[in-house]
């Protein structure tokens, strides 16, 4: 045992001796240059002469070791408790708790048991980051409420409730998703919330109060009618909002919002046209991506916008297959509102609508943009659209073309 330790030590010590020598040379070199100063003043802090075989890492302050432990999967952070007496209690106060269950490896009951035991041992009054990820089953709802209560009572700042399942075109085909508990909607410590496959339905209009919330990401979730409007008005400091494959939203109006991303919506039964109004005077970046069915986006107040990304696709009804007047008008209105934006990114589908436009002799609105990014595979149908954009960008300084495969339908 001792021999092994000795040999490990000597290999380590050769490396550390080399680095120590390099440092010593460097140190003396500098003191030569400042020789008059170095004799009179000794450095207050001279750390770089490590003795080999010393447990330096344990000498780090508690919170730094706990920061390191938060990078480990929770199971391994717990296992460090057996390294030494010093390490035994450290994991119980780590800033991050992240539980992820892969349904193919072992039963949900064991996972539940593990989470409960871990939470029982946890002694810190505060937690920064709490993440749960597994395939939700209705029987787990009560247990999950308890876990969310644990997080909120420990003043969690970043909460992620990510549930597996659901497909792009059938988000809730499988089972009833988790309904967020009402107590979660009133929380003063939450800064960052990520949800996937949940039901977001605050009961009353004034029921949402998230004064510290800065980042919100809602994916594949069901929202009741006024949910997003209530959330946005109850989060006066919200800076970044991402909605991925949620149902149609009627209005997004916020003074604080800086980044808005709407990636695909789930609205297949919406027969008539519906409109989403976006009114965010401080918005800096807007991205409309993915499949947007028949929903129109109307930009009301977006004067601070500097970056916009129009890479969306809309439904083309069979009756106007070759006409696309509706889409042309939608895109025209958007481009008019975005003419002051400095950086515009455009995807294939929008370019092709512009192409149809250009061929019919209608040019796109003049703009002040100085950077244009095209995510396209430059096929024949894109070219007139590209020309149209270039013609309407007299101040253009930079053009970037990201060649990406055409995966949208023509």
């Amino acid at each position, binding site marked *: 045992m001792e021999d092994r*330790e000795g040999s*490990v030590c000597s290999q*380590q010590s050769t*490396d*550390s001796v080399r*680095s*120590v020598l390099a*440092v010593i040379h*460097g140190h003396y070199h*500098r003191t030569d240059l*400042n020789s008059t*100063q*170095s004799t009179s003043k000794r*450095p*207050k*802090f*001279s*750390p*770089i002469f*490590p003795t080999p*075989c010393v*447990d*330096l*890492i344990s000498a*780090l302050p508690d919170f*730094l070791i706990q920061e*390191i432990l938060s*990078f*480990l*999967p929770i199971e*391994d952070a*717990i*296992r*460090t*408790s*057996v*390294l*030494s007496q*010093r390490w035994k209690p450290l994991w119980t106060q780590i800033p991050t708790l992240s539980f*992820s269950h892969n349904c193919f490896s*072992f039963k949900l009951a*064991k996972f539940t*048991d*593990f989470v409960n*035991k871990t939470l029982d041992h946890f002694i810190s009054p505060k937690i920064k980051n709490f993440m749960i990820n597994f395939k939700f089953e209705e029987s787990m709802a009560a247990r999950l409420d308890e876990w969310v209560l644990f997080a909120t009572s420990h003043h969690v700042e970043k909460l992620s409730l990510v549930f597996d399942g659901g497909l792009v075109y059938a988000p809730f085909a499988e089972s009833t998703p988790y309904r967020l508990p009402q107590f979660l909607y009133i929380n003063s410590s939450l800064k960052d919330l990520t949800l996937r496959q949940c039901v977001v339905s605050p009961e009353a209009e004034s029921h949402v109060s998230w004064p510290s919330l800065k980042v919100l990401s809602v994916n594949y979730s069901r929202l009741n009618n006024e949910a997003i409007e209530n959330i946005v008005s109850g989060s006066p400091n919200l800076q970044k909002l991402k909605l991925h494959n949620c149902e149609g939203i009627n209005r997004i109006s916020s003074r604080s919002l800086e980044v808005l991303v709407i990636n695909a919506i789930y609205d297949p039964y919406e027969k008539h046209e519906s409109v989403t109004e976006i009114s965010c005077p401080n918005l800096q970046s807007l991205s409309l991506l993915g499949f947007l069915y028949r929903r129109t986006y109307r930009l009301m107040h977006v004067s601070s916008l500097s970056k916009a990304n129009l890479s969306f696709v809309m439904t083309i009804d069979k009756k106007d297959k070759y006409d696309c007047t509706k889409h042309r008008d939608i895109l025209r209105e958007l481009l008019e509102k975005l003419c002051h934006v400095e*950086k515009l990114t455009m995807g294939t589908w929008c370019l092709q609508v512009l192409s149809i436009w250009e061929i019919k002799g209608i040019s796109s609105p003049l703009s002040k943009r100085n950077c244009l990014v095209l995510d396209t595979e430059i096929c024949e149908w894109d*070219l*007139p659209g590209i*020309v149209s954009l*270039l013609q309407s960008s*007299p*101040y*253009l*300084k*930079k*053009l*970037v*073309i*990201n*060649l990406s495969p055409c995966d949208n339908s023509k």
Partner: protein
Amino acid sequence: MAFTWSKTIYMGLDPIFLTELSISIIIFSTIASSKKSRVSKIKTADNEIFEVEEAVATMSNTIKIMAGDCSGGVIPLNNVHSTIFARVIEWCKKHVDDGEDLEYYKGALKNCDATFFEVDQAVLYHLLTTANSLDIKPLLHQGCQRFVDMINGKTVEEIRQLLHIKNDFTNEEEDETRKKLWSSVVGMNSFILL
């Protein structure tokens, strides 16, 4: 519908207004923001003075705040040694354009960073404490990741040897701890083996 690509471009564009047209077919595009290079003067604990571009130096929140207080004078760092500070500045120069978003720094260390962190434990220790005292979150983040990579795949005993941790449990205590906590621990992502 017949048209030629070049003909349409020629007719459409007015070269007078296009100041610079560079069609770069690249995978990632970045728009670099160039700030005017103002220089900060920083004095370390061993009285060595570093002249660093302001943008690089203010990656440290501590230096940023102190610069506000000192307004143009020399910023004193009383608990950072010049050798470590030099390394920290080297890291900052590499990452000055990468932004503050910690998401960028997540995951395994990329090549240039991996070589930067191939240091012995003493240096890693000082990098971590300095990153903390200078409040440079991305550097601290990467230092922690490096540490985790070091102990990846090792058994408890191997970790003890690597970090020179003295096992001060009695056999009974250790067994008890293992039984109490480890029995319920489940996970497919484990680094540390039994």
